[in-house]
């Protein structure tokens, strides 16, 4: 049954408190709505207080002579009906008994012994980071910790483009290839194929074979200097010769490039071989990324007859090896030279391939 206080009434617009003159009920007494239950004094006069409710007096919470604020309980009724409005208008709760009969359980000391987490500078959690929903989703998909992402925009909001790729590296790699391949359109290029046969031996290991081919090809273009030129922004300029090798990596085919300086040395050979083996593991040093002036694409291990690959800036030439046969000290292969037509003509290419044939034979029979 609900407990309903009978309170110090507001008897005039100016009244804020009143004096309890007389309480006319006792605990256990039943009262009806409209019964006079108390007398209170205001600054003007003494007034009778009527009960608004029917019920039994369960507690007297004031005494004659006390000055109470308007709204403070005079006594408490236990009523039958439910007060549907209870608590809705900030009704005063019945006053707590003056003395506690039961001591409250002591607060266990363990509760305060636990260290409080620092609140002044909470660690950035994923929810408090400013991020576009799409960026958040992407970070989740790619397993990126969004609290570690640095936003690039002035607004400081993390966007999709701020999330570093990790999970979908193949896609990213493919996108990069697509972008690079598009640039090939700006080079007018031609190709020319020659069959080469000679007595000698080419390495079976692809990396070592690359060294042999590179030595012959770099020797060739060093004597046919047109092929070391580049046509950039409307003028011709000699290029620093850098040779790219086609390598199959877990992300697809990559073409790390290596500077041709010192190509005759053993050190260069070792460098080239280690470049190719780490590229197979998809590890390419920054210095070996891009900027090839020429390339060697050796697809012979796939039984390819000939290939005609594209040139990408700043590349001005490239050779493709196919139809390779090596047995009993006899070598046969097809080489396709792709060249930037702006730096050389097909006739120049034919002459260059004659030189290449001769140099490759020397390399194949030489000390390397």
């Amino acid at each position, binding site marked *: 049954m609900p407990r309903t206080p009978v309170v110090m009434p507001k008897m005039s617009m100016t009244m804020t408190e009143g004096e309890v003159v007389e309480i006319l009920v006792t605990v256990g007494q039943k009262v009806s709505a409209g019964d006079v239950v108390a007398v209170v004094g205001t600054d003007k006069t003494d007034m009778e207080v009527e009960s608004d409710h029917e019920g039994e007096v369960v507690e007297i919470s004031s005494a004659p002579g006390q000055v109470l604020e308007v709204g403070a309980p005079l006594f408490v009724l236990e009523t039958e009906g439910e007060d549907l409005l209870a608590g809705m208008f900030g009704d005063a709760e019945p006053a707590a008994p003056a003395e506690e009969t039961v001591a409250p359980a002591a607060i266990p000391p363990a509760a305060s012994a636990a260290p409080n987490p620092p609140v002044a500078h909470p660690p950035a959690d994923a929810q408090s980071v400013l991020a*576009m*929903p799409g*960026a958040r989703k992407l970070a989740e998909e790619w397993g990126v910790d969004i609290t570690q992402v640095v936003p690039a925009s*002035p607004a400081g909001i993390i966007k999709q483009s701020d999330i570093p790729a990790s999970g979908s590296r193949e896609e990213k790699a493919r996108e990069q290839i697509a972008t690079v391949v598009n640039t090939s359109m700006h080079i007018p290029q031609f190709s020319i194929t020659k069959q080469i046969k000679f007595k000698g031996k080419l390495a079976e290991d692809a990396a070592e074979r690359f060294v042999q081919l590179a030595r012959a090809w770099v020797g060739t273009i060093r004597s046919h200097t047109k092929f070391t030129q580049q046509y950039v922004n409307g003028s011709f300029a000699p290029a620093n010769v850098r040779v790219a090798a086609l390598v199959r990596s877990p992300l697809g085919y990559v073409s790390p490039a290596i500077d041709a300086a010192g190509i005759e040395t053993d050190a260069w050979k070792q460098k080239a071989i280690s470049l190719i083996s780490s590229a197979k593991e998809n590890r390419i040093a920054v210095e070996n990324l891009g900027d090839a002036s020429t390339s060697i694409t050796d697809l012979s291990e796939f039984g390819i007859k000939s290939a005609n690959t594209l040139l990408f800036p700043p590349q001005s030439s490239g050779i493709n090896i196919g139809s390779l046969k090596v047995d009993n000290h006899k070598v046969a292969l097809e080489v396709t030279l792709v060249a930037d037509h702006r730096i050389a003509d097909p006739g120049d290419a034919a002459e260059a391939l004659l030189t290449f044939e001769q140099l490759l034979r020397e390399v194949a029979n030489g000390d390397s």
Partner: protein
Amino acid sequence: MSERIITYGEAVREAIGQAMEADPSVFMLGEDIGVYGGAFGVSGDLVHRFGEDRVRDTPISELGIVGAAVGAALTGMKPIVEIQFSDFTAQAMDQIVNQAAKIHFMLGGELAVPMVLRAPLGSGTGAAAQHSQSLEAWFAHVPGLKVVMPSSPYEAKGLLLAALDDPNPVIVLEHKLLYKTSGHVPEEAYRSEIGKSKVVREGKDLTVVATGVMVSRTLEAATQLAAEGIELTVIDPRSLTPLDMDPINASVAQTGRLMLVQEAPKHVGYMAEIAARVSEGPAIYSLTEPVKRLAGLDVPIPYAPQLEKSVVPQLPDIVAAAKDVMRGV
């Protein structure tokens, strides 16, 4: 065949004339639409062509006008109400909201209210606070009403004819500044589909949804921005209720950026609905920038011409806001 160019006001009049010729149940009623020709000259010579029974001048009582139209619609007529200024629909809201929008549903679908209510909205004519509001959100919020906002002479005719075909009450909100603008309008009676947003320009960088006069203003901004290499897609929802989100979502998926332009005050404006719907669907994951709302200020439209212009988005505001979105600020 050369494209015929007429004004927005002429396009509305042509649509009404063609509807009246095709269907004897179509008639028009409103204040000063007879020999005076309408407050904005839209009805023009219609009273001479169709007579005073079909182009009815009414007393100055918006509640009475719409009440009469609702009654006529219930008995099988197709009334076209003209309210001189959309601000005055406030006088007629009980008939519009509690009667026209509800009757079909409260009578178990037995009756329909095929009423079309045309009203000019918007600022820019020096008509001050009580004659310049953009109240489209009021109507769009009431189930049972359809709401269209023609943004060009072509749409003015096409949407009005579509509204007349519709068995529901349709509110047609015409922008005052557009009445004198011209554009290509075919002579035959064609319809624009209500409930189909229209992509009026395609660009890869930023999706802009605009309504009313803001559509042409945004198209101008798009031309300026294109010169600076920023390509806008501009989408005109045409009908606010029902709203077709498909082209908007599809475009946001491509551009990753969304700007919403309305003349009405920003607070609880119609564009908030579009922003909310984008955020409810998969398109939200395509957004690379927060949604930008460009809207009128939350103030009554001032009378002073400079102030009147400054409280609603103008061409330079749209250009600047689009650049802000592109810069990510």
